[in-house]
């Protein structure tokens, strides 16, 4: 559990850093303060075993989207969003772990979870950065068609996953 907490608190701290830096550089003190409040609230929610962190995560995502619109390098909000995804996942995982007993033989569960989440986050961050570097010139029709296909594909995946879930 110690390693889990370390990764969770580090990722949450880095979210605060990667969001506050662009806000403070623009003198947007309100947004920076709001970021710190949300991060603190998130930590508190997880500590109190409350699932309110989902709401905090949604608010933080909106703040990140707001930060992405600023002229500051997009790598900051992208990294903050990826790290907030990691923190969001670990929050759920830690709350669940505290609801149940972990047999001694299942300690590797935490380690493998951390490895997998960090790997997925790393891939997401890498692909996001690649996407930022990539510049494509698409016609309006192709853009609409691609967007539609992405929407439909994602909708199918989500529908399938929801059918699997309760």
């Amino acid at each position, binding site marked *: 559990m110690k390693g889990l907490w370390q990764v969770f608190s580090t990722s949450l701290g880095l979210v605060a850093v990667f969001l506050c830096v662009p806000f403070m550089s623009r003198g947007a003190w309100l947004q920076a303060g709001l970021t710190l409040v949300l991060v603190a609230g998130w930590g508190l929610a997880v500590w109190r075993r409350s699932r309110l962190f989902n709401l905090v995560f949604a608010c933080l995502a909106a703040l990140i989207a707001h930060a992405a*619109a600023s002229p500051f390098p997009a790598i900051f909000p*992208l990294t903050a969003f990826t790290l907030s995804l990691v923190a969001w996942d670990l929050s759920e995982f830690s709350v669940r772990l505290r609801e149940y007993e972990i047999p001694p033989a299942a300690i590797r569960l935490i380690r493998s979870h951390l490895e997998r989440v960090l790997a997925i986050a790393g891939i*997401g961050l890498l692909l996001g950065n690649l996407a930022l570097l990539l510049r494509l010139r698409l016609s309006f029709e192709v853009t609409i068609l691609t967007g539609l296909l992405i929407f439909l594909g994602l909708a199918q995946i989500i529908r399938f996953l929801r059918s699997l879930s309760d």
Partner: protein
Amino acid sequence: MNRLVLLSLMIFGLLLLGLGTLKAEYLALAIPPVIFLLAGLAYSPETPQVYAQRSLSARRVTSGSPVTVKITLTNQGEALEQVWIADQLPPDLQKLDGAISMITSLKPGQSVSIEYVVRANRGVYRLPDLIAGVSDHLGLVNRSLPLGNAETISVLPDIHHIPGIPIYPQQTRGYPGTIPARVGGPGVTFFGVREYQMGDAWHQVNWHASARHLEEIYSNEFEQERAADIGLILDSRRESYLVTHEESMFEYAVVATASLAQAFLDDGNRVGLVQYGQYISWTFPGYGKVQRERILSALAQSAPGESLVDHLEHPPVRFFTPRSQVVLVSPLQSKDLDVLLNFRARGYALLVVSPNPVAFEVSHLPSVPAVQLAARVARLERTVLLRHLGQAGIRVLDWDVSIPFEQAVLTLRRGVARFSQRLQ
């Protein structure tokens, strides 16, 4: 909120924002959650084949005895990233040791177990069906798997081994037992003298009586001892019992009923049980160990209830064999007097075991003059009630529950001895 829904809303929101504003940053932001979503798809458990088995060290125990519960979870399908299971304990079941829940990952064919120890007071406790949860690594796809295996733990009342209680029903059964049958024959207690009959043993001959008659020889006759029908009635009306923070008088009544049932059955009698509570519930008369188990099971489930009508006014007389022995376990209310007199008038031999509510309540109250005065009045009322019962030929054991039941029962035996001495 469902994690999958939240993630989907974010992805679609960012895509729409990116397409709407033609800003690549929003589209780039949508990539990490899409990767999370795809990972959830890749690692989601398709058809988990998990089986659970719950085993108990005992299903029927006495009050306070520990029961070990073991739950074994076996994965007979593909590897599962996260599996969790939690046993739902009834609130009155006290966990002494071990874990009642578990979260783990399971390889194909792997089994894991949890074990815990519980203890409870008298009652029947149902452990519901086991439900396991299965999820992918990211917790996006959660599944509940109902696994069955509901179990019941019956915690039987304590039984005090009490000495034989002297009872004298007018009617006995044809089988040998320990109850004086008011009929001459083989036995131990002297019953009378009759004319010698062929087959009488020489040591049976009453030489004193025979010496007074020249022609006849007389034999001693002994009282036969037979089994009897005994109907136990447990008063389960809530209004009859006092409850304090620590204990309820009803528990004492249940213990007394269980102990009486055990003692009467051990003596070879046919015993039945009727409980007057919210409803009338009965255990039909029977003999032996099986009947003892039936009665103890019924007592394990017994709880005081609010009666819709005063059932005691309508005794199920068909349940009790005519002129048999009836034993009522009740703290007694003043309105019960007429009912008990009615029972007696029908020819039943009635014994009332009455846990004393006055002594019980006084022991839990401060010793101030007002309480002492109230206790004195209540005692007088109770004495009058018990005296009325005694005058009607109903034997009463006024049991102060601070005294062990087996000790209290001895007063019944002493009372019978004094009664016999007076007769001689």
